[in-house]
């Protein structure tokens, strides 16, 4: 929670005014019985209806002032809480986006989303409640204790003992439930993961007819969440009865010792009545406080989870070299590069070196899991090398800022992902300020122009989530257009034409080669046809480069390449 306090800093005034007004309101509320006492003590014995009327008028005035104070208190604490949550959310979102691929891999999407949504909501509720009650309750409790001291020191000690005992109980229950609330949020993550994967995999699930089993798995996670919530609820529900017992035990003891004191003449009956009233006030406040604390322990658990995310350092350090990207093709060099993923037993890439002059085309080919994607992922620095380095225009990728590095590279990923919005929105994802002509040029180069124009609304046609209203090949071509629009210095096509027929694939490659300032092109592919005209072909096998050269050279020298080639013709 400490970690998050700084988000309240800009709302110091609200944090101060909220509780202050709450306090004022409480004060006015406490005055009202005093006014009634004046009616009873002065007005009634004097049969003075005018005085009574005046007092009632005073009461109404206090009620109005109380209302104004209360509304102000609510407003200020709501303002502080909502803005606090917005600030936290903004930073968490921003921070999540700055994590590197390897953290994203380990963390997983579901938990990132719950932390951003449900956890922050819970903290917001906690802050709001806290601001409204944290001054008021202790104020009333300590006020009552102090008042008790003015009446009788010995009797007041009972108050002190009760308050200490209560603090222990409150703290104990909080300590007991806080870790439980944390695991509740953890289980909520799991429920969410299950729900999401059910939605994402709906076709496969239905094809295999495993709806019931998937549902049972969801239910099981849902049940385990619920049972923990119920258990934790049971512990939290102890708070009220415990405070009730302690206060009333103190009350009984107070009456007994009060009896003794009155018997010996140390106290009067009136004193005892006053003490009893103060004890009663404490109880009322504590019941409110108990509810606050239940909510607070949950909020604290959530705050911890949020702080965990904020504390998570991206494992890669961003470079500082900020060179604006020119629209020229870039040169690329791999120098003794090795890659090892977290938790993997073997290196994914071993000791690979080659140079790519600007503007040339590199083909990368190899078996499933041979490290093709791992290799090209190093160019935009999605992952860091374990050994060796990757240079772009002679500068190590680790030295560039992410923005300047990635602004010169465009990637067409293996899995074609589109976003909800229009086709145009998706293309502008590549470069915000692209003109309509540039968009159309990119679409034409990507062989996507015709089908886009066939869609209702053309560029403004809606893309539903994940692009499910487009076929696989259409999606791939839109992803290619999105990349081309960037005018990148380096274009990486990671097996991104697999759903295209050969004619389209060939036309696409031709169009890219004919672009002005054609980018240095990396083509990862299974098809020799897609890469056989490349200037350099890198043949990968289980993470090592087993061949490098042109198509003709490799046919002579590289048996793996020959095998791949022959398998396709």
């Amino acid at each position, binding site marked *: 929670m400490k970690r998050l306090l700084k988000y309240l800093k800009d709302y110091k005034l609200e944090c101060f005014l909220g509780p202050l007004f709450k306090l004022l309101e409480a004060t006015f509320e406490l005055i009202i019985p005093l006014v*009634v006492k004046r009616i*009873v003590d002065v007005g009634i014995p004097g049969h003075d209806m005018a005085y*009574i009327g005046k007092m*009632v008028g005073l*009461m109404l005035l206090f*009620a109005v002032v*109380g209302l104004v104070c*209360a509304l102000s208190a*609510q407003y200020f604490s709501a303002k502080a809480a909502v803005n606090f949550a*917005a600030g936290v959310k*903004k930073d968490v979102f921003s921070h999540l*986006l700055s994590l590197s691929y390897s953290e994203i*891999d380990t963390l997983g999407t579901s938990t990132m989303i719950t932390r*951003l949504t*449900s956890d922050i909501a819970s903290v917001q509720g906690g802050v709001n409640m806290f601001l409204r009650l944290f001054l008021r309750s202790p104020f009333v409790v300590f006020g009552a204790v102090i008042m008790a001291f003015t009446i009788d020191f010995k009797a007041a000690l009972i108050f002190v003992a009760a308050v200490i005992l209560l603090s222990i109980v409150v703290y104990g229950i909080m300590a007991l439930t806080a870790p439980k609330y944390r695991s509740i949020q953890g289980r909520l993550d799991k429920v969410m993961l299950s*729900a999401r*994967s*059910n939605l*994402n995999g709906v*076709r*496969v699930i*239905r*094809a*295999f007819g*495993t*709806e019931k089993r*998937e*549902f049972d798995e969801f239910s099981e996670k849902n*049940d385990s969440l619920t049972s923990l*919530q119920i258990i934790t609820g*049971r512990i939290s*529900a102890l708070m009220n009865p415990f405070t*009730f*017992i302690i206060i*009333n035990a103190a009350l009984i003891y107070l*009456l007994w010792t009060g*009896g003794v004191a009155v*018997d010996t*003449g140390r106290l009067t*009956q009136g004193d005892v009545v006053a003490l009893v009233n103060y004890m009663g006030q404490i109880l009322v406040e504590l019941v409110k406080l108990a509810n606050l604390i239940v909510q607070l322990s949950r909020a604290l658990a959530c705050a911890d989870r949020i702080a965990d995310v904020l504390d998570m350092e991206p494992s890669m350090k961003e470079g500082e070299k900020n060179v604006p990207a020119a629209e020229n093709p870039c040169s690329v060099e791999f120098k003794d590069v090795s890659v090892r993923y977290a938790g993997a*037993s*073997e290196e994914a890439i071993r000791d690979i070196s080659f140079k790519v002059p600007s503007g040339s085309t590199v083909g990368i080919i190899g*078996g*499933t899991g041979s490290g093709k994607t791992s290799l090209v992922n190093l160019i935009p620095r999605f992952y860091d090398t374990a050994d060796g380095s990757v240079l772009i225009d002679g500068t190590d990728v680790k030295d560039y800022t992410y*923005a300047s590095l990635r602004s010169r*590279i465009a990637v067409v990923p293996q*899995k074609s992902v589109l976003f*909800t919005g229009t086709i145009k929105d998706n293309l502008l994802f*590549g470069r915000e300020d692209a003109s309509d002509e540039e968009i159309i040029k990119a679409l034409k180069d990507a062989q996507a122009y015709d089908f886009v124009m066939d869609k*209702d609304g053309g560029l403004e046609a809606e893309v539903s*989530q994940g692009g*499910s209203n487009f076929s*696989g*090949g259409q999606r*791939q*071509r839109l992803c290619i257009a999105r990349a081309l629009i960037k005018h990148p210095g380096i274009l990486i096509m990671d097996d991104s034409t697999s*759903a*295209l027929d050969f*004619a389209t694939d060939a036309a696409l490659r031709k169009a890219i080669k004919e672009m002005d300032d054609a980018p240095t092109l990396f083509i990862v592919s299974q098809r020799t046809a897609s890469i056989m005209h490349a200037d350099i072909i890198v043949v990968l096998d289980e993470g090592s480069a087993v061949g490098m050269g042109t198509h003709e050279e490799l046919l002579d020298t590289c048996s793996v390449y020959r095998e791949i080639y022959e*398998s396709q013709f």
Partner: protein
Amino acid sequence: MKENIRILKRILNYIKPYIFFVVASIFFAAVSATLSLFLPVLTGDAVDMIIGKGQVDWNGLTIVLLKMALVVAVSAAAQWILGACNNHITFGTVRDIRKDAMRHINELPLSYLDRHPTGETVSRIIADADQFADGLLMGFTQFFTGVITIIGTLVLMFMLSPAITLVVVVLTPLSIFVASAIAKSTYRYFKKQSEVRAVQTTIISEMIEQEKIVQAFAYEDRARQRFNANNSELTGVSLKALFASSLTNPSTRFVNNMVYAAVAVSGAYAVIKGRFSIGSLTAFLTFATQYTKPFNEISGVVTELQGAIACAGRIFELIDEKAELPDADDAVLLDDVKGNIDIDDVCFSYTEDKKLLENVNIHAHSGERFAIVGPTGCGKTTLINLLMRFYDTKSGSIKVDDKDVKKLTRHSLRTNFGMVLQDTWLKPGTIRENIIMGKPDASDEEMIRAAKNSHAHSFIKQLPNGYDTVIGEDGGALSQGQKQLICISRVMLALPPMLILDEATSSIDTRTEIRIQKAFATMMKGRTSFIVAHRLSTIKEADCILVMKDGNIIEQGKHEDLLKQEGFYSNLYRSQFEV
């Protein structure tokens, strides 16, 4: 408001199974509230026994204090049980609603799921359900105790002075009126809040889910801008909603203070007229405060419930979404499949105005291998959607073994097809769980044999925990090709009588593919198969090639025959050798 009542009724329906706990909750609420009212009376008695020096009734005091101890103990126990019951009701109810929502998702037509962002749907099942729980719990905790306290104090007040009680009773509805007026005028803020929040959830889930793409395009800053804009909007809306929800309590308290003042005046008047004693007035005022307090709480509950109802409404909206047309009553199980498939005059479109398939006719005999080729967007995937009955045809019919698919249970139809899609999907879990998906009772030997056939065994073996390696969301660090191999193993293990392979090997290298092809060939023997592929080797061996363009089958026949036709297919074929 009518809408709210309808939602409330449905919530009550969900609570019904917990009726035992509800009854217990009411009972213990009654016990604890009554005892709490009794306690001040006992305290008063005790005070009356401590009159002054030497005037303490020790025997009486002991008895009263013992009574108090008993009352406190019983009341505390009742409070705890009450809390536990309420917890049980709330979380149980939410669990059931969540379950129903999830069950319903399984019945929703794909057209709904394709159109609605996953983030939004998940937000309904998770976030809305969660907030609903909070509201409901609050409601239960305070509602019954409140009601019983009101009744109890009313009785006690009535015993003291029926006339002044009347004043109280007449005035208190004011606070309920104020509360409901506030609730009514602020409902829209809650609704707006829910809506803006749903947009936020969509942004969050899209940007976070596709974070890798976002980073690849250096889109982070723009993503932040979009998020921040929405976040500011949400902040404004939430502030309004939160403030609106907190209006009620002070307002009703204000009304209660007025009630209190009215009691003071009328009470004082009664005392002056000699109809009332000062002691009774003091007691009456105490009861009046105790009586009005629950009204505050209940009005607080009303706002809280309102938020809860808005959330519940959104979940129910999902549950009410029209499900897939249920299987016909006379739907039969498809079993003992031969694999004769007849597609007659099928037309289909996703949207009314745009035809996707037009008069498609395909007749496949048992064991035949069909290859579907054609430019992207020609309707191949749509055809598969229809075969699997993910969507229903607009006109025409699809028959399997002469049985119309609409007269078959979906489950039996689908499980008789083995499907591998280009878009690989793996469920979060172990590799084993993923492979045995189609045949949960498979033995280890069967599973490994399937994995070996699809050449997935060798890489799986190298993973830290082999088949028990847990893969994260979306396959985690596995390569696209490896994921595809696992998907193929899944079908190789299940071995259904008909197959659909939509670019099933698109991410697998050709050498591995050739080896898998052998296994595929064995698998396809005697199984009617539809294969979407670009690789000629696959296509060439097909019994029939369907060439599709713009939703029509324009050519149909064997490879050699089609080449001779010098049509679209032969062009397509030749283009492979050109650049």
